């Protein structure tokens, strides 16, 4: 029987070492485990993006209205948000979409394809 693990055993492989850097094209990235859904991010967003919905799923903020002002990053009281690359650069200079820039269900599929 296949087991599923929560908590400590939900190990995630760190980004592959073939990835040497990220693009200068940045998005707001979230560490979902720091988020407590207080909503300070979205409350301060000048264009009204519900940032915590992305944070909850651990996705980058890909809303096309985002003007990259960084207000949500600055206001978050728990350090959930930061700048992260939208595109990853491999050692051989080829590119890869950051899996966090995709919705969660697509992330799984993208891992399978890889």
């Amino acid at each position, binding site marked *: 029987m296949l087991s599923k693990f929560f*908590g400590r055993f939900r190990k995630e492989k760190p980004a592959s070492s073939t990835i040497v850097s990220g693009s200068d094209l940045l998005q707001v990235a979230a560490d979902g485990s720091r988020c407590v859904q207080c909503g*300070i991010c979205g409350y301060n967003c000048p264009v009204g993006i519900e940032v915590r919905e992305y944070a909850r799923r651990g996705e980058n903020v890909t809303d096309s209205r985002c003007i990259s002002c960084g207000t949500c990053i600055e206001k978050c009281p728990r350090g959930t948000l930061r700048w992260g690359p939208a595109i990853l650069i491999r050692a051989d200079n080829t590119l890869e979409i950051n899996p966090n820039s995709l919705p969660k269900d697509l992330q799984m599929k993208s891992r399978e394809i890889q």
Partner: protein
Amino acid sequence: MTSHHYLIIGNGAAGMSAAEIIRQRDTHGRITIVTNEPYLFYSRPGVAYFITDMIPERQLISRTESFYRQNKINLRFGHISQLDLRGQLAFLEKGEPIAYDVLLLATGSTATRPSFPGGDLEGVITLDTLDDAKRAIRYGRRAKSAVVIGGGITAMELAEGLSHQGARTHLLQRGSRLWPRLFDEWESKIIDSQIKHHRIILHYNEEVAEVLGKKGKVTGVRLKSGRVIKCQVVGVAIGVKPNRQLIEGLPVSYDKGILVNEFMQSNISTIFAAGDVAQVYDRWTGRHQLDVLWPSAINEGQAAGYNMVEVAQGRNMYANYQKESPFNCALLFGCHLTVIGQVGNRSGSDKAEISYLSRGSSHVWTAPFSSSYRSAWDKKGQNSLRIVMAGGRIVGALLLGNQELADPLRQFINQEVDLSGYESALLNGQEKIPKTILEAWRNWHQSWQ
């Protein structure tokens, strides 16, 4: 196809995350959440930011009515006062029965009331729920002075809130530093200096003997030193107690909280528990422990949700929950704090601290250290980094101010990465620590390939 009924008592982080998983796994099942608060799902930790006016009340609500509707989660406002295990029934206060196939107890915990005389006067408040927060704001606005008691995050947040609302606020500490279970001298001093900027008056080595009152209302506190501080509100944050009243007297095993196995299941196969009320096995100490942290509640709720579907549909459970090393972060008086793993202090005088868990605290932070534990520091101005090492691994870290190394440290601790090759460099301390951690981090990443 029969549709199963999943009953969840409690609309907090554990209850909600269980409901979400159940809906993903069983699209036909009926899900009912019963809550004794008059609100949709809101951010409990967020009330600290509500009392300092960083966000309005409506922003705390993070699941709208349409979310409940879309996910076919039936939210009922009421209080479950009794269970019938044999009949698989839960009774609302007025006697109305709700039949269930599988039950999740996610009833959370409640702030401990003080035991000193006068603790029941009007004006003695705690900070737990949204209603508590509203009360704190009301009292804070009206009061000229406030006194706050408690050594943890919640006490500091409550003091910050009352002060922000205009009350001249005194924060009383039983010992000679802030949060003695966790902070060392230096870390306490950093927060201490921040607190002074917030016009809060700190008193060390002071304890309340009694709350003074007139016509049932708070007028001041008398300290054990004999001193009297006049105030109209007393904030108390001395810990939390799991809400396990519902199962007391029933054949459900409990200790401080409800005892559950790795599947979040109690000794009764159709009853699960998750969140503050559950007492889970902790491999770090080898005992069942309470864990009143938000991320734990979410993980526990999700694991419970998976297994509840399996039990309802007559299959074997497979979602294992294993407690992570404790992790919490906070913004205290403008200073960022992250605590990971075992960092607690062992100085003798602090042993008799509080008898219950602080909100946002964890027993494991202060689990007894063996003599092989060694600490190292890097301190610069308002930034501080402390690591604790044992057996060639980092087992705990506390970061104040600069948070750059929080993520690498968290992975090192959680995944028990062997750093014995770096041990001497790390334990020599000072500016070598951050450099060494980054170097180890890079090498660890490369080792995955």
